[in-house]
């Protein structure tokens, strides 16, 4: 049996497969279909200081082999998560709390409340679907560095992963800015801003008009960005964007990722994550890889 365990920002994970934020709630619903303790970790739904009701519906659309969403960070707020969901989720697996503020200060405040209680913080500075905060802090390197530093200052013991937006001029520059701000790791990519139009109604399908594009079709762009970002920094990278099978996950590992997240494919196949974990085990065995960590950054460019 190949060893699938990895260490991410000093924290051991039983395998590198993590359902991505926003596609998995706090894990309870998927746990009705399979025991989520098989997962390396769970990235929670984005948490804000106060509960948020999100955007009007429709919040989802499909276009070719990608999906657009504009949920708008609907969540019960960080206090509800701490009270109702955290201890259950921690009893299952490692917890990555995804944090979204409306102001820089709010990011710090949410992080302070979660410090020492979850295994990781994932700073969501890349949500394309909210008016305040979200992607606003994730575009300019100076803003990325500032919000990262504020979050880092609020955290005494929990590693900080900054989730980068792909809607930027240079992914390397924002990756370096996160590292400069004190990030312990980065994750990418969040969704690409897009639009789908209902030609009969001559209106955007999404009530929010635009939404975040995810799914299989974005994978080559995401792989390239993970490759570039991982070469720009000396902190671990969590790769995601269109992963639907073990081979896709291996691509991200080779490009430089230590772990991977699976988002949209959880909708296509509720058992996506456990299937990818099993697939990685088979792939490693078939390719004589004893420890999956050996794949990270093992890409040889032409």
């Amino acid at each position: 049996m190949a060893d699938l365990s990895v260490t991410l920002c000093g924290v051991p994970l039983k395998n590198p497969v993590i359902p991505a934020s926003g596609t998995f709630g706090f894990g309870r619903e998927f746990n009705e279909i399979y025991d989520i303790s098989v997962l390396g970790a769970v990235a929670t739904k984005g948490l804000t200081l106060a509960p948020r009701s999100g955007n009007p519906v429709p919040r989802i659309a499909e276009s070719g082999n990608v999906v657009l969403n504009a949920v708008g960070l609907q969540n019960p707020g960080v206090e509800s998560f701490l009270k109702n969901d955290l201890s259950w989720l921690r009893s299952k697996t490692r917890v990555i709390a995804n944090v979204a503020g409306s102001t820089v200060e709010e990011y710090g405040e949410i992080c302070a409340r979660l410090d020492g209680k979850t295994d990781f913080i994932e700073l969501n500075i890349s949500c394309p679907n909210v008016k305040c905060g979200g992607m606003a802090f994730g575009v300019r390197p100076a803003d990325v560095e500032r919000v990262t530093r504020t979050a880092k200052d609020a955290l005494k013991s929990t590693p900080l992963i900054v989730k980068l937006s792909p809607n930027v001029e240079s992914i390397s520059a924002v990756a370096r800015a996160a590292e400069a701000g004190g990030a312990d790791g980065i994750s990418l990519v969040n969704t690409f801003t897009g639009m789908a139009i209902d030609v009969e109604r001559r209106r955007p399908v999404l009530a929010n008009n635009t939404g975040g594009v995810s799914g299989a079709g974005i994978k080559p762009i995401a792989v390239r960005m993970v490759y570039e970002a991982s070469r720009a920094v000396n902190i671990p990278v969590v790769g995601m964007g269109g992963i639907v099978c073990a081979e896709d996950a291996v691509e991200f590992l080779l490009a430089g990722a230590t772990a991977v997240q699976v988002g949209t494919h959880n909708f296509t196949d509720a058992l996506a994550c456990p299937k990818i974990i099993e697939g990685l085990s088979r792939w490693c065995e078939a390719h004589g890889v004893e420890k999956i960590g050996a794949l990270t950054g093992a890409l040889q460019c032409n």
Partner: protein
Amino acid sequence: MREVIATVLENIRIAEEVYSLTFAAEEIPVRAGQFCMIGVGAPLRRPFALCKAEGERYTVCYRVKGAGTRALAAVRPKDEISVLMPLGNGFVLQPHEKTVAVVGGGVGVFPLIAAIRAFCGEREVYSFMGFRNRAAVCMQYEMQRSKELVIATDDGSAGYRGTAVQAFMENVGRIRPDAVLACGPLPMLKALKTAVGGRFPVYASLEERMGCGIGACLVCVCNTADGGHARVCKDGPVFDLSKISL
């Protein structure tokens, strides 16, 4: 709730652009009004009410509307499809709700077929089913289990000329229902809610574009009367309309 690989037994056209798909899978208890998510070879599964569940045989009916339902219409007997089921809460009647009106419009009649099948033995069921025209009428043999059935068409080409809600309201004084089960387009549900005016509960199955179908992604929400949100897939799809803001 399980993800099953089901075998298609039949996929036939039953009205203009409307198909009935029957598949075989392991026997799972299903409540009337529950639904399933079927993989159609696209990133998102499509939600369909389970019209019939008989042992290992399940039937969904759908109108071909976009790429997903077009792909589904092309599946053939012996093909395998991935099905996530059963999902949602289903229709639940209180013991005292003995006389029940069933009001459906368009593809909204299909979840109600399951309700008619479930409740006809034990309750008095009066059904009012609306279609665009005669060519759209289907599954009458299932609806005829009702104590009374009124078919309504917009153009009067079959049955009552008008909407299912109009047909129901013409008879409401006579049948005096304890509750209404409903499904249909939003304007229909709004008209029904207004016409009933809270005199008796209306339990309606809502339709919304869905992501995961199991309550995790918060894509398919509706507004609740108290200003909050409910998930159509997990907290519904059947809601007491007095608790929902349409």
